Each structure stands twice: as C-alpha cells, then as structure tokens.
C-alpha cells in the first residue's frame, strides 16, 4: 500500500494537503525552549518549597516573562508552554502563565482605552490580572450569580462576593462578571467590568490549604460598595455572560494543556522510577499493561486538545471538541497520576509524584466541572444528530 501511495503522488504530483499531526519546526524549537526553562527553573526543591509554603512564585513569573517563555503572540506557543511548564510542576507552571488569565475578554470585547490602560502593563510584565466569575455557593451555574452592579451617575457600585478566584490576593485588577439587571432570562442580566484590587471596598481573603496547585494564589473576594467608573464596563451591558462563555471556550483549551502537562509529567516520573527499579520489575506484564494504557490515553488527550486548538486558532472554534478536550485531558491527568502511583508504589508516593496526584484533581473542577463539560458535549451532539 505504501508503494502505491508513492506511485499516486509521483503520478499526479498533486501533493494535496491532508491530515497532518506534526508541529512546525519553529513550534518544536519553542517546545524545547519551554522545557529547558522549566527543567532549569522548576527544581524539585523549589517545587516542594512553594507547594509546602503556598507562596506565589513571583520571581519565576518575572523570569518566564523576561525569557519570553510565555509568548502571547502565538496561541500555539502559549499552549505548548503551559504543557511543558506543568509537566515539570503544575503549581509553578500555572503560576507563570496565570498573570494574563482573562486577557482575551478585554482583547476581544473591551474598548481601546481598557486595552491600553490595563493590558499593556500586563503584557509588559508589570501587572497581573485575574478573572472573577464564580461566587460562594455558585460554581458551574454562572447565570445564577448574585453580585450586583448598580448604576449611579457615571459609575457602577458593586456589591457581593466572588469565590475561588485565581490570583485573587495578588492580581492588580480583575475581569469581573456581575449582575446589572434582573432579567427573566438570568444570563441576559450580566455584565463584565474591569475592577481594580485597589478600589476602595475591595477585599481579598487568600484561601490557604488547597489540595494541590498550591503555588498558585486563590482567594475569596468581598465587594462592599466598590465604585467602578463606567468606562470600565467591558463591551455592552447585558452581554457579559456571552463574553465570558466565549472566553471559556478559549481558556478550556489551555486547561486541557495543563492536563496534558500534568499527565506527561506524572508519566515521565513513573517511567524513570520504574527504570531505576530495574528490568525484572518493569517487565512484569501488569506493569507493561498499565504503561500502555497510560501512554495511549495520554496520546489521545494530546490529539483531542490539539484538534480543539487547531480549530480555535484557525478561527473556526468547535465548542464540542473544546469541551471534549477539557474533560478528557482532565480525566487523563487524574488517571495517569493515579496509575503512576499504583505502579510505583512506595517509591512513587514518597516522591514528587504525589504532588502530581494532588495537582491533577483541580482540572476536573475548575473552568467547568467534568459534569458540566459532559452536559455541553451531549447537548451539542444530540442537537446536531438528525
């Protein structure tokens, strides 16, 4: 069959473009760069220390920015960096990529004024931003959120609370989704604002004691009559829900990238422990079966993620595939980390592997729990089926 194929190509010389699974040379090089950075900067000692002390690694953020490991000019490179950084350590890796979290909302829907005032400093590494959507007792039910913004003259007055906000106690400002009117269709009453942490009435309480990704900062926000100038409204009033959902369809791909990274990192470590244990250990069939299952699922997660990314980055996003990527990569991170501990036993659980197991679990929860992703996937599919 191979020869015939050759014959065909030789014969017609069409050289048609077809399914292609390889990255460009440029992307491959960038991946090496990101990996090299992570291996150099994210030493096991540092990773353990930040995990233990639950500190945000600001030095690492600065270095990553200085070395252009986070290159927002090419989304593929962002995805690749997330993967390679999380592969070394999810807490530090996410911390390095998180200062820009939420940026696309302003980029896509914000005024030039907002872009200039808020995004430029972020992109220059002088400022950090965050996204504030979830509320206490809220979670996946975004349309049900209760924090309100009331128009008064040229300002909005915000009251309420936000929960599980990444970089909540360290970011300079947030893209925040709040309720501006009581519409019958609840999601029509939501709007997005830029809210600075320096605004009077803004308070952040850092949440200590997370199961994993402990280097990242997470906080509960309190908003007591916070006065926000009307020019900080992003886009139009009442469109906030749509903006945020658009954003999630982008960011879920990056969460999938975190999943691949964590899974790959856990896998790497398991293989290296097994090789250290020796041939008679890793050549047992049950171990080999587990390795094959892990590697296959990891390969599959990688491909779904790249497919979703390829569609999005070429301006034809497919929300179904995006949700599949998020769900499957999260499952894969949890599955691989779990299997990695199983096949390495005492050696594994007393090593850095244990952190990957703890880190992985958040992926099934944040930016849409796996349950919510499944509902999205299923609804779309059933709708499309004739």
């Amino acid at each position: 069959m191979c020869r015939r194929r050759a014959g065909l190509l030789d014969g017609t010389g069409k050289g048609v473009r077809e399914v292609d699974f390889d990255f460009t040379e440029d992307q491959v090089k960038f991946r090496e760069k990101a990996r090299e950075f992570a291996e150099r900067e994210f030493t096991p000692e540092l990773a353990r220390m930040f995990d233990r002390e639950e500190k945000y690694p600001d030095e690492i953020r600065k270095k990553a920015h200085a070395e252009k490991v986070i290159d927002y000019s090419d989304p593929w490179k962002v995805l690749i960096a997330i993967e390679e950084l999380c592969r070394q350590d999810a807490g530090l890796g996410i911390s390095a990529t998180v200062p820009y979290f939420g940026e696309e909302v302003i980029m896509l829907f914000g005024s030039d004024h907002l872009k200039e005032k808020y995004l430029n400093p972020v992109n220059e590494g002088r400022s950090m931003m965050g996204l504030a959507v979830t509320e206490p007792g809220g979670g996946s039910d975004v349309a049900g959120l209760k924090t309100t913004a009331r128009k008064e003259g040229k300002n909005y007055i915000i009251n309420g609370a936000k929960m599980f906000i990444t970089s909540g106690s360290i970011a300079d400002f947030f893209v925040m989704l709040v309720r501006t009117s009581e519409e019958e269709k609840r999601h029509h009453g939501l709007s997005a604002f830029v809210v600075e942490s320096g605004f009077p009435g803004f308070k952040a309480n850092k949440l200590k004691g997370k199961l994993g990704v402990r280097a990242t900062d997470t906080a509960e926000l309190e908003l007591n009559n916070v006065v926000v100038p009307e020019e900080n409204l992003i886009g139009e009033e009442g469109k906030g829900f749509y903006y945020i959902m658009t954003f999630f369809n982008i960011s879920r791909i990056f969460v999938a990238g975190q999943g691949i990274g964590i899974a790959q990192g856990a896998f790497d470590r398991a293989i290296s422990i097994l090789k250290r244990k020796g041939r008679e250990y890793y050549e047992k069939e049950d171990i080999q079966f587990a390795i094959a299952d892990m590697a296959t699922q990891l390969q599959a997660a990688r491909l779904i993620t790249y497919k979703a990314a390829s569609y999005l980055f070429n301006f034809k996003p497919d929300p179904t595939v995006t949700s599949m990527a998020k769900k499957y990569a999260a499952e894969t991170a949890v599955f691989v980390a779990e299997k990695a501990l199983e096949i390495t036993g005492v050696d594994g659980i007393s090593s850095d592997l244990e952190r990957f197991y703890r880190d992985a679990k958040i992926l099934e929860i944040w930016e849409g729990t796996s349950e919510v992703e499944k509902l999205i996937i299923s609804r779309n599919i059933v709708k499309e089926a004739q």
Partner: protein
Amino acid sequence: MDQDSYRMLRENVDEFCTRNVEPLALRIEREGMPRDLSAKSGAQGFNTATADPASGGSGLDRESYLLILERTARSSPSFAMYLMLQNSIACRILGASGKSDIIREIASGNKTTTVDILSLNESSSSPGNITISDGKVTGTIRTVILPSSDYLIFQHQDALYLAKGNDGIEILPALGFRGLGLGNVSLKERPVEKIAESGGAALIQETIRNSGREVAAMALGMTGRSIDMAIDYSRVRKTFGRPLKDYEPVAFQLSGFKAQEEHLRTMVFFSTARDEYIKPLATDLARRATKVALQVHGGYGYLEDFGVEKFYRDSMTLSIYFGPSKSDMRVLSREVYGEESGVI
C-alpha cells in the same frame, strides 16, 4: 460482641472523637499528632486495644478494635493510622519480643513507636543503608511512617532491632496521613537493642498480612464519612435552582456508595471471608468514594478546611502502604489452581 456492647462502644468512641479528635482534625494534618491526644486516647485504652492486659494492653477483642479504627478514621484517618501502627504493628511485634515495658509506655501515650514496614513492601526499592556493629547502628532507614517516634523497630539481616530516638529526619513528601508524616530516619552510632535473633522480616510481614481487616476498617470509616459529608453537602448546595440531591446522578451515586458502605461493614465485622479479599475491596471502595465525595463538593472539596480532601489523599495512600500485595495474589492463585501459577 453482641449488638448492645457494639452500640455502646461505638457511642463511646464517637463521643471521644467528637470531643477530642474532630476539633483537632485539621491541626493534626498540618502540625502532626499532638502528644496530649495520645495520652487521652491511651486513657481510653485505645493505644493498646488488643494487647494482652498482662503487658499493659486493654485486651479488647478484634471487633472492638476494628470498630475503634473505623470510627476514628471518620474524624481523622491520621489518628486511626496512629492507633493501628501502635496496636496492630508495634504492640504485636513488641508482644512477640517480650517488650512489655514499651507496650506500657505506648498504652499511656507517653511514648510512640514505629516500625519500618514500608521498606518491606514489594513496591519499595529503598531498603536504606544501615550497618550495625557493637550494638550501635549507623545509616538511614528510608520511608518511615511516624519518623519522629520515640522508638523505631526495624529488621536488619533478618534480626529485629529496637532503637530509641534518632539523629535527624529527612522529611519526605507525604500524600496521606500527614499527621504522622513520612521520612528518612538517620541513625549515627546509636545504641540498638536486638529484640529477635532471626525471623525479623517474616515477623513484620506477617504482622502486616494479619492487619488486612484493620486496613479495611479504616477504609470503611473514610468511605462512610466522606460520603456522609457529600450527602449533607448535596442537601444544602443548590445549582440551577435545585439542591444537588435532586439530580439523579448525584443522589443515586451517593446512595449507592452508602449501600456499598453498609455491605463493607458487614464484611469487615461479620463475614468469614479472608482478609486478603476484604482489604483490596475496601481500599478500592474508599478510593472511589472519596473521589466522588470530593467532586460533589466542587471547589470547596479542594480546600483542606472542608475536611473532605484528606480522605482522598489518605485512601490512596492506604492502598499503596498496605497493598496490592502480589504475594497475597500468588497465595490465592495457588489455591485456585491447585498448583503454581502467575509466576512470570
């Protein structure tokens, strides 16, 4: 044990936990077991539940002991593991070695003992590197649970040794049972007592093998409590205008786990099934249940404060520390086949 004594003991243990363990559960995770908790637990007779009263033990029967492990694991798996380590592991070995003086110290809670069990686990490749001469030990014993113990029992060249204190601990990442910690223990020219000439490894291994039902009892407690927490949470937490419990997958899944918990309880306390069979069933259930319990809690499940994530960590750790044992499987397989099997 009849129904009444069972119920009474259970109420007794639960009350002890409510008063003494529950309020400390988070602190135990973060800072380790407070010494006065071992003293209180010693006063209840928990520290040496099954040891011979003649050597300072409480002389309780196995069912009572299993019940203590189950109920305490509901509040703090670390504390339950502490009890198991003292009882099932240390006291049995000390008893076999005639060290009733140390059992008495354990009973009072004044001293703690640990046994190097993990280096004998089939999945471990780190036996450490110690040398013993002239009654002194030098080197490192790796992956020790409760490394800060006052006494450390370990085997070396098949003899069994007892060391007092240590010369430094390298703390290791500990996924679970953080209240006890995990570490490499350094010993430098430290005096040791030889407490058995030979059969040390076999004695430790047998002690672990005989603790299958105890492991299952802990898994039972962890399953039960985490699912109870998830059920409580599903009543109060609303999403899309309805409490979580109104959704079939949530309600049915959690109810299903309660049924499995009940079934496991029957097995742990009343069935004649082999321990080797009950143990993996129990740890597997605990792992699945605690994962679901965490997931039902959403973001809150990810926070230590809510007390559910520790069950997720501890159940995984329990299943690694105490299994799966290929030697158990080989024994079972030999029985089933009536000949050697599963040898390659």
